[in-house]
């Protein structure tokens, strides 16, 4: 196989990162935002791990061979803990979402703002309010 990914990995990582960012910016649903953050997080982890790979290397678990080539263990260490910390912080975000839902009865950003500030709240200036919402 002579396929060489070159910089392809990094481009996909950037695509993922931007997808996550777009979700966080443009979606009003809080759980969707958390999902977007998760996508973003995975992309960062992927970026680090991609950099750690050495061509023809193997996982940094030492073997008896003298001439073995290993991939870089350092990104693994950093990202391993980052994943577990990531799920813990995701849990905090989700817990906040649950409490917000209990308080406002919705997870939609603009509805929460409406409940907080009334119909002409800070969200109203951003665009035309279309009240023909089905269901």
């Amino acid at each position, binding site marked *: 196989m002579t396929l060489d990914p070159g910089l392809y990995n990094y481009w996909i990582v950037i695509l993922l990162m931007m*997808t996550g*960012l777009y979700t966080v910016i443009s979606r009003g649903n809080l*759980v969707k935002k958390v999902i977007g953050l998760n996508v973003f997080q995975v992309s960062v982890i992927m970026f680090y791990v991609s950099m750690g790979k050495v*061509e023809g290397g193997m996982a940094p678990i030492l073997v008896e061979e003298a001439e073995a080539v*290993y991939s870089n263990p*350092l990104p693994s260490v950093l990202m391993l803990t980052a*994943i577990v910390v990531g799920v*813990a912080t995701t849990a905090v975000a989700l817990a906040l979402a649950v409490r917000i839902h209990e308080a406002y009865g919705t997870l939609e950003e603009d509805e929460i703002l409406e409940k907080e500030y009334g119909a002409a709240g800070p969200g109203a200036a951003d*665009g035309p309010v279309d009240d023909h919402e089905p269901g």
Partner: protein
Amino acid sequence: MLALIDVVLLAFLAVTAVAIVRLRDLFAAVMVTGIFSLLSAGLFTVMDAVDVAFTEASVGAGISTILMLATLAVTQDVEKKRWRRRFSPLALGVVVVTGAALVYGTFDMPRYGDPDAPIHHYLAPHFLEHTPDDINEHIPNVVTAVLASYRGYDTFGETTVIFTAAVMVLMLLGGAATIDRRRPGGGRMGANVVLRASAKPLVPLILLFGLYVQFHGDFGPGGGFQAGVIFAAGLVLYALVYGPDRAQAIFTGRRLEALVALGVLIYGGAGVAGIVLGGEFLDYDLLAADPQDGQHRGIFLVELGVGITVAAVMTTLFLLFTGRGQPAPWEDRVGESEGTP
């Protein structure tokens, strides 16, 4: 061949990410997130980061998905379609410009897998060469050695972050943590026979496997973080099939809270022991007569502490989320049609 797998899986990953954004049914989006983390864990294996793959598989595909589902079960599971939601030119513009700038930046990067990249010439060779001398020749897993010993201070911080997160979720959701038997995922001991029969032999096996991962982490992929999550996953399976109240008969909230703290204390204790014995914080060399034995003992204790904390935190999180009360009365969830993209 591995390069091909890398390219194809990354392409799948990109498509999946776009699908996640476009799905308006949050339930479906969370499920596709499951695929997303399975794919990324596969990619970590291709990139030789087996420990990361281990963690991502257990955390991303398992616990994280379950927590999101539990959240959806007590809140709403369809994103509402209102103004500003479908398409946002401003957000797209920001994203495209940022993305273009980042892509421009990558042209200065070493290509994927380049052995001459600067990252491989600074600390990594040191760790790979000196682990058998500095730490212990019987610990071939360099990731574990770096995690628990070279960068032990950092890992201690991360364990504390997990501890803090658990405390925060307890503060947010712990108040009314009573299990309502009529809630999704709650109560109900008379679960399905087939599931009960297949889960019964699996649960002890999973717990055993968790212990194996915990204590085999020095020699192969694994360690405290992974083992903790796997152990918690066993308990979660039990709670899912037999009902959380049965799981809570053994792991009551109080005991779990104590375990969350115990793990951090073991870790900190191993560090303080170094000071007491006349060295520095987290200096394992002094824990035994021979520095190498001391290192092994220190790593064992630290990993044990991490494992206990992570297992207890993950179980606590699951029980807290599923233990939340009924959805609010204004949410009429019955008869909602499925939203498709």
